[in-house]
């Protein structure tokens, strides 16, 4: 142990003493590689399970497969890992904004296993979010091992997420952008450099282990102006689908929340529904990369009607899987729905305007995917870079940007918060760095206490109090019980001024007779946001802070402003 200890504090190593950015870059690369390996592991095991189960798909009882998978994964998460179901990205974002990026070690593999069970058995979900979660947890725990501080840990969490996405899609820029746009939410050089390195490491790991293959290779596209105009149509369609999917997921979640049966049986129920849909439309099962591939190649069979039905079926299957407690992300289903939407739209316009020379179907599938991703995640940059990279198709960049922007804007209009952030926004827990909410959340009541108030006893005479007023330079006097020391009321100088000059009252009035008992109080663990709201609505400038029934100090707007400014300065200006 003695020999290992110095390892734990890399900040002591001579090399990193020069510049601690170097430290983050080196550890970032390690984190990126580790999460890249985790992503590959999930990918490989998914393929293995899918292939094993493939032989059983044609039996009539095949619909129970997704049910079993979802139920087992739900049991695994709930009973063994003791985590909530869901894809995990909101947990990562919450941890980054409130807990300095702390994540449990078991999170680094829990979602991998549970999503592997759900998706491998046929559930309609994506492996990306679970991989992001485990990458982030790997980063967090490596940071903890090396005793790094919160800022460095958050960067490493971002590195883990970037490495995971980069590795699973063989797309370094998308990984980088996703990590910064969705997970960290702050564009600063301090974060970008280690995250970029991690993205490179993650990608390289995947290239070394399974070859440099583009996830969905494509043919050459020739895009005309008319195709770009038609792209606007796709933007509208994908935006609508995004809203439908988001609302349906929420609805399912609500219904399943109201159903009074054990969690695992809910997941089983959802899985059964998915299995039923799978009997008619087998393409909706699993993560769906296979169908994406054939759609981009323009070789997807069926007419407009079948494709449209498939699209709706996929939406339904995804909401059944994720809304009822299956484990997995929404990334891959979005890609599938997007490409279905793309080719449906292509077939529709070809049918209406047969004389125009449209670009081929695959191109529209790509644009549809981008529209769907930017609609659901409201992360247009991630969508653009991801599609460009996973298809190697730079020719489609113009409609891609256009569709991503329009789709994200339209969705934002109906659903102000993206799929990943909605829960956090509803719980008021989305606290991006440098925002008002974040500054207020970081400041603790204990740091803002003004301790220069003189506490007086309830049985003190007004005469003695006048002497104390002479010495004090505050207008507030908390009153406590002499025996118990508990806070019982406040005296505000403004309210008792007339009596102070009435010497007749000096020996007849006790302080408990003139104090106010109906006082707005704050507690040490209160949210600063709530305290400020109380101050604003009741027009107060100072509030007494109570801890354990005792008075500990005053909190006032002036001090809050003073420390708020310092906190904001420190949060928004980076020193390395």
């Amino acid at each position: 142990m003695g020999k290992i200890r110095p390892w734990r504090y890399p900040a002591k190593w001579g090399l990193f003493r020069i510049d601690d950015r170097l430290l983050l870059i080196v550890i970032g690369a390690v984190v990126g590689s580790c999460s890249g390996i985790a992503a590959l592991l999930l990918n490989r095991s998914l393929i293995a399970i899918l292939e094993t189960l493939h032989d059983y798909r044609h039996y009539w009882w095949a619909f129970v497969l997704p049910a079993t998978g979802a139920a087992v994964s739900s049991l695994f998460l709930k009973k063994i890992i003791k985590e909530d179901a869901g894809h995990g990205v909101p947990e990562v974002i919450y941890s980054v904004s409130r807990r300095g990026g702390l994540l449990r070690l078991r999170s680094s593999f829990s979602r991998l296993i549970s999503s592997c069970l759900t998706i491998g058995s046929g559930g309609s979900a994506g492996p990306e979010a679970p991989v992001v979660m485990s990458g982030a947890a790997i980063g967090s725990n490596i940071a903890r091992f090396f005793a790094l501080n919160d800022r460095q840990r958050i960067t490493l969490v971002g590195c883990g997420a970037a490495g995971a996405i980069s590795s699973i899609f063989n797309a370094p820029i998308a990984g980088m952008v996703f990590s910064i746009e969705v997970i960290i939410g702050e564009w600063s050089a301090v974060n970008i450099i280690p995250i970029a390195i991690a993205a490179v490491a993650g990608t390289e790991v995947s290239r070394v282990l399974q070859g440099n293959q583009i996830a969905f290779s494509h043919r050459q596209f020739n895009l005309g102006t008319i195709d770009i105009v038609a792209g606007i149509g796709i933007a509208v369609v994908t935006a609508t689908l995004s809203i439908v999917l988001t609302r349906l997921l929420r609805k399912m979640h609500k219904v399943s929340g109201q159903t009074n049966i054990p969690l695992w049986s809910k997941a089983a129920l959802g899985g059964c529904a998915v299995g039923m849909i799978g009997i008619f439309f087998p393409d909706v099962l699993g993560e769906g990369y296979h169908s994406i591939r054939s759609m981009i190649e323009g070789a997807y069979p069926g007419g407009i009607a079948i494709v449209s039905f498939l699209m709706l079926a996929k939406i339904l299957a995804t909401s059944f899987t994720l809304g009822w407690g299956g484990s997995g992300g929404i990334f891959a289903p979005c890609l599938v729905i997007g490409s279905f939407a793309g080719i449906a739209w292509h077939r529709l316009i070809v049918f209406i305007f047969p004389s125009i020379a449209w670009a081929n179907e695959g191109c529209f599938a790509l644009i549809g995917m981008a529209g769907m991703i930017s609609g659901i995640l409201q992360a247009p940059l991630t969508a653009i870079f991801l599609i460009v990279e996973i298809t190697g198709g730079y020719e489609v960049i113009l409609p891609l940007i256009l569709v991503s922007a329009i789709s994200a804007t339209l969705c934002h209009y109906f659903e102000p918060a993206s799929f990943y952030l909605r829960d956090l926004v509803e719980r008021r827990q989305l606290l991006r760095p440098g925002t008002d909410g974040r500054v207020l959340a970081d400041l603790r009541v204990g740091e803002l206490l003004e301790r220069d108030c003189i506490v007086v006893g309830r049985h003190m005479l007004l005469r003695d109090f006048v002497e104390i007023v002479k010495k004090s330079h505050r207008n507030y006097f908390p009153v406590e019980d002499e025996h118990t020391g508990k806070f019982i009321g406040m005296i505000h100088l403004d309210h008792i001024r007339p009596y102070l000059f009435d010497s007749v009252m000096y020996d007849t009035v006790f302080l408990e007779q003139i104090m106010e008992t109906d006082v707005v109080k704050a507690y040490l663990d209160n949210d600063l946001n709530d305290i400020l709201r109380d101050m604003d609505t009741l027009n107060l400038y100072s509030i007494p802070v109570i801890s354990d029934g005792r008075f500990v100090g005053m909190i006032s707007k002036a001090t809050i402003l003073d420390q708020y400014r310092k906190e904001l300065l420190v949060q928004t200006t980076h020193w390395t």
Partner: protein
Amino acid sequence: MKLTLQETAKRLDLPTGMVERWIRQGRIPIRKSGEDCYFEETVLEKWAATHNLAFSKKEDELREADIKKPVSLRSAMENGGVFHGVPGKNAEEIFEKIISRYDFLSETNKELLLQRLMERESLTSTGIGNGIAIPHPRSPLNEAIKQPAISTCFLENPIDFKALDGKPVFVLFLMISTSIQTHLHLLSRLSFCLRDPSFVSFLASLPDKNRLLEKIALFDRIDNQ
């Protein structure tokens, strides 16, 4: 130079809890060695400058500014001196006589002081009754003097000072202060003494300097308790 957590918090004018949180969150540059932290003064100073935060130079300066004890009545009276048998028929003549003995004032300041004293008298008399007056300039002589001074002047012949109770004045406490605050403080201390009837009768016995200052020291002690 290495600083402790408490020193750092004090120099940054922040609660210790906030500095601790900043260390945990990695917002403030420190040298970490295992569980121990070190603060480098020069590094912190640079960091504070880039973040627009105040970083006070030396702790001692702070302390000096904080603990500025108010001047005691006795020392002020010692500065001003005690004069017996001051001649003069009216206020202006008496003031001139006293001011001429102030070595610490330049000629222009002496004129200024007289002018301000007369201005104050023209507003309303400073005779507070019982044969006592506390003349003082209309506004303090900020730069002209370093220490506040109260001159006790027993007059040769009691004169009419247009006092509140109409009694002729036999003793003057001429007060010059460095600031409004010291003026108020000394005035409050002095009037506390003068409210005591035994002190007034003591004054009527025309005590010499030492006896007077001893008596005043007694009052100062009561105040400090």
